[in-house]
């Protein structure tokens, strides 16, 4: 039994020493080995690695893309108009040793880098106008409608991208300067939101309302215009149609009358005297009525036989 216990003890000690001299580096980690506070080595490759047991301790850093969420803050632009800007930063630890010596941990890193970026953001916003920051170039057309194209810098880069690039490179220059050398790389700075502050929001809404009112009034006026144009055109058409009809009608009537005159005259010409006679008789019948008074001569042809049958 004693031998067994001895073997067991040796085995146990070996196990502890073995485990103490081994460490694993995860896929997502960097490991810095420190001996009594002094940095011995940095392991960036994942897997199993060896160290001196007991005296070396393991400090782990994240090698993934890290995130700093910056609190929204109100910033004045070039025209002293405020915008509420909410941005985030993505960075990576590139040199764990430098990181450990300067920033030492994630929390401190977030605070320090966050401060640098906010300051750069603030100065970048301060030299640009709103349209640069939002990124749109509104174009008002002759008919009052507005369309927007991306606002581009002189070299063709969209202004918003250009601003973010500007902030990114300046912030990177600061974190990698000799004085700082934080051992990080800022991968991306982005504005999530750029909103009007509550105080100006009301103004924006009233501007939006008045823009819409102009639009609505214009549409209604256009409707009226269309109505009047179409109906006037119709009225014109109607008058033309009727005038044409009357013209044709008069032409037809004229033709009819002319033909009638010609036809009759043709017939009557055969004996104008007889026509005159007949027509006169007819006229007499029509001319006289019960209120007419005639004075006749007793020696007219009519009374030839009145007093003398022979």
């Amino acid at each position, binding site marked *: 039994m004693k031998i067994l216990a001895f073997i067991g003890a040796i085995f146990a000690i070996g196990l502890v020493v073995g485990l103490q001299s081994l460490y694993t580096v995860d896929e997502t980690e960097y490991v810095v080995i420190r001996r009594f506070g002094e940095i011995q080595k940095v392991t960036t490759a994942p897997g199993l690695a060896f160290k001196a047991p007991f005296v070396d301790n393991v400090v782990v850093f994240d090698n993934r893309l890290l995130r700093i969420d910056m609190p929204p803050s109100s910033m004045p632009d070039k025209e002293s108009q405020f915008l509420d800007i909410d941005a985030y930063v993505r960075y990576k630890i590139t040199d764990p040793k430098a990181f450990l010596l300067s920033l030492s941990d994630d929390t401190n890193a977030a605070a320090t880098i966050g401060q640098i970026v906010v300051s750069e953001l603030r100065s970048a916003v301060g030299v640009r106008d709103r349209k640069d920051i939002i990124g749109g*170039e509104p174009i008002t057309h002759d008919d009052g409608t507005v369309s927007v194209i991306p606002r581009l810098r002189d070299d063709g880069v969209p202004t918003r991208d250009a601003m973010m690039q500007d902030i990114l490179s300046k912030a990177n220059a600061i974190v990698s300067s000799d004085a700082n050398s934080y051992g990080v790389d800022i991968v991306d700075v982005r504005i999530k939101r750029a909103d009007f502050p509550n105080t100006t929001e009301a103004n*924006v809404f009233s501007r939006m309302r008045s823009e819409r009112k102009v639009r609505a009034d214009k549409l209604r006026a256009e409707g009226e215009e269309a109505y009047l144009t179409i109906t006037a055109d119709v009225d014109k058409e109607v008058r033309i149609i009727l005038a044409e009809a009357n013209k044709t009608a008069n032409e037809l009537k004229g033709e009819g009358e002319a033909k009638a005159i010609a036809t009759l005259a043709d017939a009557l010409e055969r004996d104008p005297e007889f026509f005159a006679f007949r027509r006169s008789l007819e006229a007499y019948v029509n001319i006289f009525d019960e209120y007419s008074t005639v004075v006749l001569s007793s020696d007219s042809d009519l009374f030839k036989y009145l007093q003398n049958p022979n």
Partner: protein
Amino acid sequence: MFEPPRRNQGQDIQIEQILGGIGSVLNNIMQRLGGGGSKILILMIVGVLLLLWMASGVFTVAPREKAALRMFGEFQTTAGPGLHWFWPAPIGQRDIIDVDVTRRMELGVLTAQNGNVQDVPLEALMITGDLNIVNVQMVVQYKVKSIEDFLFRVDDPGDVIRGIPDGNPEGRTLKDATEMALRQVVGQRSIDDTLIANREQVQVDTGLVLQQVLDEYQTGIQVLSVVLQQVRPPDEVRLAFDDVVNARVDKESRVNEAKAYEQDKLPRAQGESQQIVQAAEAFKVEQVARAEGEASRFLTVLEEYTISKEVTRRRLYLEAIETVLPGITKFIVDPDSGGSMLQFLPLESEAPRPATVPVPVPVEGLQ
């Protein structure tokens, strides 16, 4: 520190329980045997424990799933659906992820598990390129395209509301990038474009920007679709926007009224025109027919008249006089008895004529 979701944790606990149970059983046996053959027994125990430990490395990957395998923290390989073995903990680690399932993230709106939909104005309200404010609600559909990137490349605080754990880029990373992409795209457009005209393009562009950023961050996420759910003006200016819609309807209805007017008036005018022309046509035919009739009557009469001129002439004359003279006041005067008619004046007083009686003048033949 990052700890990807471990699906096999439950299994581990079971194995420990089993091991504990086996241990107590073995202790029992050892006590009964009383020392003899204890070396063999210890070896046997170690062997059994080793076997059990090895056996716990067996795992299955369901269809649609994928496993990422790490040994001593180092990523080794991925395993597709099926039965597999890999080193169990503490040597190996495995993470199984559903890579085929379409995942979904809402922006600007929050659908609770009980189906209640809630607006999230902070996410939904944004500035357009013409400095208006618009309310956009959007859904992003995505899946995991690279399990390695998805698990190991991006840190993320997760999202409690959506139930996404730490270290999963589906959490804040995806949301940040989506908000950024959408706002960038909307910032380059007018409110009208966003509201009505170009929603498709907003979706496409947002998807492109989003995918680009997600790839840049190595999230391993594939965007499947970006769909704008509801795009509307903010509630504060809703009425003004509605009025524009109404105005457009008003305009259309005004145009329609005008068209109705046109449809009513023109055919009527055409009809009236026909009426006028046809009446004139009728008049013409009438005139000609009457003239012809009269002419023919005259000619016929003339023919007979020519045969016995004197008699017919006299007869016609007398007949006419017969028709005329009855019923009218007549004075027959002998010209030899002075010849002046003054003696009869005033003639009118004999039979006063009512002023209102019209004098019919029938128009026969010629006009």
